[in-house]
Structures are given as C-alpha cells and as structure tokens.
C-alpha cells in the first residue's frame, strides 16, 4: 500500500521536474506528462481507497528524518486511513479533470508549460499534505500549497491585479499560518512528537491543561481559517479569482481551501477536548457562511459569486465541525469539491466563450452552450442542496447536526444562508443562461470536448456522490458511528426554501415581475453594505494605515537609527581602529626592533611583578 502512496505522491513531483527542466519548450508534451502523471496518481489512489475499504484502520509508515534533537525525533511519514484516502481520491480526481479541462481553456496561453508544471507541483504538495503523518510534514506541504496558490494566482503576473491578488493571498494566509506554526511548535514542545497518532495518545492522557488545549485548538484553527478563508481572513479568496478559472476550480474551490477544513479534521482529537474551541469554530463558520452568502447575492462577476459561495460553503464545513458534525463536515467538503469545481469549470467555459466575467454582459447562453448550461444547472442545484443531488445530503446533514446539537441560533442562520445560496445560484443561472441576450457582436459557442467532458463527469459525480452518504458515514467517523437520522422535516423545509428562493430569483431576474433596480433602491443601505463586502477590506486598510504603519514607522526608525547605527558604529570603530593601527606598520625594521626590545623589557617587568 505504501508503494502505491509513493506512486501517488511522486508522479506529480516527477511531472513537475520533467516539465520544468526538460519539456518546457513543448506545450503538448508538458500537458501530456502532467496529465499522465495525474492519471497514474488517480489510479493508485483508487487502489489505496479500495485497500482501505477492505480493512479500515490507520496504516502508518515512519521514516526517521532528522534525529538531532534527542527528545524530538523528526520524521517523514505516511498515515493512511479512510479520511486521508478519500481526500487523496478527491484531490487526484479534481486535479485530473482540471488538467484535462485546461488543455482547452489555456490553449494558446503563453505560460502553458509553466501552468502545468505548477499544477503538478500543487498536486504533489496537496497530496503530501493529505497523507502527512505528522504536523511538521503537514506544515511543510501546507506552505508549499500556499506557494503554489501564489504562483498560480499570479499566472498572468503582468496584470497588476493578478500580481496584487497573489501577494494578498500569500500575505493574508500567512497570518493564519503563523498561528499554526506556533501551535505546531507548542505541541511539539509539550508532547515531544509531531506525529498525529502519538499526539492523540499523549493528549488523550490529559497532559495538557484544558486552557492549553483550547489555545492550541484555536491556533490551529487560525491556520485553518487563513487557508479556508474564514472570517476575518477570507478577504484573499475573492481576489484570488484573478488567476485562471481552472485554478480557481482546483485550488480555490476544491482542494487547497479545503485544506484548512482537512487540518481541523486531522487534528479533531484536539478540538474534541475543548468545547470553547468548537464553539468558536461553529460561530465563525456560521457567520462566515452567512456573510459570504449575503455578499454573493450582489456580486456581478460570475467568479466572485462563486468565490463568495465557496467561502460560504467552507463556513458550513467549519460550522459542521464545530457542532460535532465530523462526518457531515467532511462529507460536505467532498461533495462541495465536486460541484464547486464543476461550477467553476462551467463558469470558465462561459468566460472562455465570451471573454468577460460580468454576468450582465451574458444572457441566453442556454441555446449556444447546452452542455455547459445543463452541467452548470446541476452544479447550482447541488450547491443549493436540492434533492437528489449530493449537496442535498451533505448540507442537510450539517443542518440536522446543528439542530441536534442544540445550537438553535446557528441553525437559523445556517438555514437562512441555505436560502441565500439557492437564491444567488438561481440568479446567476437565470441571468447568464436564460434571460435576454445582453452581449452584442459576439458569437458564443460551446467549448471543445476537452472542456465539456470533464464537466459532464463532474456533474455525474455531483449528482451521484450523495447516494454514498450512508456508506461514507460508516467509514468516516469520530468516536462512534454517527448513524444518519432519516429526518424528513428539515430536508423538506430546506428544499422548500431553496425552491422558494429559486422561484424568487426566477421572478426577479427572468420574468422581471419584481424590478431588481427598485429592490436595490428600497434597500439601498443594505445593498451598499453588501456591495462593499461589509467594508471588511476597508477595515483592514484602516487598521493597516492607523496601526501597522505607525508601528512599522517606529520600528523602521529604530532599525535605521539604532540597529543600523550599531552596525555602522561597529564598522566605523573597526575602520578607524584599523586606520590608526596600520600606522604601526611603518615598514621600518628599526621600529619593529624597538617593539621587540620594548616587549622584552615589559615582559621582564611583568615577571618581576608576578613574583
């Protein structure tokens, strides 16, 4: 099984190296290498999953790496269990589909080979993150995916927006990573190991005080919030849409942003011990979901809608984890990975055809792009949680779990957010595919087969995955198996609200029974508030201007005058001392002779004094 893991991991790495150093000139070979490697990885991960399925449990491979610290052996390793094997499959699948799709989407792009090499590197890093058996290794890959995200957002680095977005993504996630790093170091110091299973055992024995556990959990969540774009560190994700759309599908919808959720799942044994941390996660998750969902309603950029939707759904996952919905949260991660990747790829197909992101410059694309429209519809329905798509199963599991755990306020907010979700997806769908044509002089056409085949496959998955939910909950659980309740009321209610929202959207944007402009005027304040994304970016700017700049100016002054002064002073001292001392080297032998004899005399005096 570990040989298979090595295959999964090393194929993308090999592809990265090959493309970077050898096949960079030939675009066709580059993409082929990348895709073949990914396909091999996918096959291997499927085999691994089959093996795990036949005998669930933890399989661990440890390789000693650095043994300098006696009390803290550092190792590389692989931890295979149902959780990681499922994630392996998801990553490989989405990555492969996105790579196939990119053949069409990135056609004729200048950085085609570069793009594929970075995608391979990303796949490698993400897979490494998934199978890591210790926190340090996870952290290394965690930073690597962050790097790949930076590189790929900045794929069109000559565009200032893209370069800035890449920077923003890197810097903002760094805030969270800092917390994670502290947590890793703290845990390593306290438990003497990085290994997940050993940390679980040590922490289970109650070595840490409850306060310390809460602190560690919150610090880890800090990292997770940065990567998974949770409030208030979510601001980088909408900007990250400057990258190529397939990248948004792969990294910023399906895999990397889910890494934060995955991290929480991997370290759930810590969170489970701290009720406070769980509550914090639940509240932050829920408020993120609500906030992002509401912002998505007023976005004009099709990718931004999807980006906010992603933030919102990640919030859902966090909410689920916060209310002990381990299985539900993880299942939502997987279903979301499929249908959000599908939606992004569908959006990419539209953008590819019309060369605009603005939904108000589209319209009635259904007749030109039937496959895209249908698959987008399926994705939208899945996101809205309409029966029988996978989103229905995962989202309702979260809602049920929230209600069961007794968080009524959170449930209400989450339920409302579900309505928002349906509404904004319906809005996008109607405006883009069904309403009147708003473009002129353009001739939209269906995308090539390399692009729509992945769409169809992902759509199949988005629909089909839901029926594995029972098997899933028997395979992946924390503590005891959480038998899915066959509640009827909540699914019914949520479906009704979703359909209601869709109808509302239909009425506003399709039939225009209710004027959108009038609504905007009526709720001008709310609209403005949402349009400006809750003024969170402005808040950051304010903080930066008024706090950070003041502090950094002070620090800069300190650096320039005190630190540099010390350094320059040392230099000045040395150089002037040398300048003075070099005069001693007169080159005249007799001066040296004076030194010799004078030294002899001094020696004699010293020896007399010693007596």
């Amino acid at each position, binding site marked *: 099984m570990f040989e298979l893991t090595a295959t999964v991991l090393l194929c993308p790495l090999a592809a990265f190296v090959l493309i970077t150093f050898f096949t960079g000139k030939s675009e066709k070979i580059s993409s082929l290498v990348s895709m073949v490697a990914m396909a091999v990885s996918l096959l291997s991960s499927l085999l691994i999953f089959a093996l795990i399925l036949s005998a669930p449990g933890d399989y661990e491979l440890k390789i000693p790496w650095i043994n300098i610290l006696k009390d803290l052996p550092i190792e590389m390793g692989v931890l295979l269990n149902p959780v990681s094997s499922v994630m392996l499959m998801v990553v490989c699948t989405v990555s492969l589909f996105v790579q196939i799709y990119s053949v069409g989407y990135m056609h004729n792009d200048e950085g085609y080979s570069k793009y594929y090499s970075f995608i391979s590197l990303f796949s490698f890093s993400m897979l490494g993150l998934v199978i890591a058996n210790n926190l340090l290794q996870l952290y290394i890959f965690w930073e690597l995916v962050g790097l790949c995200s930076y590189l790929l957002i900045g794929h069109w680095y000559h565009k200032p927006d893209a370069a800035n977005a890449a920077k923003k993504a890197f810097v903002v996630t760094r805030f969270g990573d800092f917390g994670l790093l502290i947590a890793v170091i703290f845990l390593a110091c306290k438990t003497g190991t990085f290994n997940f299973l050993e940390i679980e055992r040590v922490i289970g024995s109650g070595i840490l005080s409850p306060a310390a556990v809460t602190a560690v959990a919150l610090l880890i969540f800090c990292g997770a919030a940065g990567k998974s774009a949770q409030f208030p560190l979510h601001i980088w994700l909408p900007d990250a849409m400057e990258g190529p759309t397939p990248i948004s599908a792969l990294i910023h919808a399906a895999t990397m942003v889910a890494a934060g959720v995955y991290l929480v799942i991997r370290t759930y044994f810590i969170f489970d011990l701290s009720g406070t941390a769980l509550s914090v996660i639940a509240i932050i998750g829920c408020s993120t979901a609500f906030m992002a969902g509401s912002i998505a309603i007023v976005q004009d950029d099709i990718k931004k809608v999807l980006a906010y939707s992603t933030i919102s759904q990640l919030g859902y996952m966090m909410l689920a984890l916060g209310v002990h919905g381990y299985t539900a949260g993880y299942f939502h991660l997987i279903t979301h990975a499929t249908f959000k990747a599908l939606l992004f790829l569908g959006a990419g197909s539209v953008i590819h055809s019309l060369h605009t992101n603005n939904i108000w410059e589209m319209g009635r694309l259904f007749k030109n792009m039937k496959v895209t429209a249908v698959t987008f519809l399926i994705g939208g329905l899945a996101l809205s949680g309409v029966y029988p798509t996978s989103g229905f199963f995962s989202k309702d599991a979260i809602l049920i779990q929230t209600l069961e755990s007794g968080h009524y306020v959170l449930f209400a907010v989450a339920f409302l957010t579900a309505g928002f979700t349906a509404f904004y997806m319906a809005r996008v769908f109607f405006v883009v595919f069904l309403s009147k044509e708003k473009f002129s002089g353009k001739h939209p056409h269906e995308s090539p087969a390399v692009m729509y085949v992945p769409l169809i496959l992902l759509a199949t998955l988005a629909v089909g995955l839901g029926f594995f939910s029972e098997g899933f909950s028997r395979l992946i659980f924390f503590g005891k198996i959480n038998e899915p309740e066959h509640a009827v009321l909540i699914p019914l209610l949520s479906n009704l609200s979703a359909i209601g929202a869709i109808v509302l959207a239909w009425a506003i944007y399709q039939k225009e029974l209710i004027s959108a402009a009038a609504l905007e005027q009526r709720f001008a304040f709310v609209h403005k508030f949402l349009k400006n994304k809750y003024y969170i970016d402005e808040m950051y700017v304010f903080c930066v201007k008024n706090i950070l700049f003041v502090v950094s100016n002070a620090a800069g002054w300190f650096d320039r005058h005190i630190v540099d002064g010390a350094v320059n002073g040392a230099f000045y001292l040395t150089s002037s001392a040398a300048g003075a001392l070099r005069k001693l080297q007169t080159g005249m032998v007799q001066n040296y002779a004076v030194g010799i004899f*004078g030294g002899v005399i001094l020696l004699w005096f010293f020896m007399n004094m010693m007596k």
Partner: protein
Amino acid sequence: MIDMYLLYFLMIFAAVSAVGVVTFRNIFHGAICLGAMLLGIAGIYLIMGAEFVFAVQVLVYVGGILTLILFAIMLTSKIADRSILQANEQKTVSFLISAITLFVLIYAIVKTPFTTVQGPFIVVDTARIGKSLFLNNILPFEVISILLLAALVGAIVLARKDIKK
C-alpha cells in the same frame, strides 16, 4: 696589578670606542672606532689568558670583517657624507630602551651570587684548543666550515653583477 690597570684601561677604551661607533656622523669614523673597540676587546682576551681567541679576534675581526666593512663604506661612497643625519627620529625611545635594558642586566648581575674560582687567569695554550676543536668539537667545526662555504658562495652570487644584463 699592572694587568688589572691595563684591563680597566682597555675596558674604558673599548667602551668609549663603542660609543663612537654609534654616535659618529661620519660612518667612516665610526668604522675606525669599531676597529679600536675590537682591538680593545682583543686586549681583554689577551689579559684573560685566551691567547688563541685574541689572535682570531685580531685576524678575523680587525683584519677581515672590519676591512670588509670599510670596503662596503667606500663602495657606497655617498653615505660617508658628513652632512647626512646618521641617527633616526626614534633616538629618545631607543636610548630609553637601551638604558632600561642596561639597568635590567646590571640589576640581574648584581643580584646573582656568583661562586667564582679565585686565582690568576689560566692561560690556554693553542695546542689544547686545537685538540679540543679537532677531537671533541669536530662535528660543529665541520658544520661551521659548510656554513662558511655557503656564505662565501651566497655572498658572491648576491654581490656580482647580473651577467644577463
């Protein structure tokens, strides 16, 4: 008794000549003083009964080395000018250093209790020296011959004019 007075006289003579060596402006006069000092020292050797050493001192030092030095002075004639200052600017420091050195040495000499053999100086005859040189000290003797040979060759090589030019 006469020996003793003679010894004192020679000591003073040699010391004065030595001062002359380091103070005369004209290096030529200094060299003459050096000759006088060497002769003075030779006289002391003679009084102390080291006849062979006296002979060697006169022959090698006065007859050889001093002549050589005079040759060198004449070959580099310009430096024999009176007008050129012969002592450099570290005169005071050097004087201090040599004075302190002298003080240290005298201090050590005075403080040290010597158990000397009394009686007149024993005259060493040349035959004993010859035996000692060629029997007991034959190895140093041969080594010194090689050194002399090397110095001879070296001096010739250094001092000759470059043939290639």
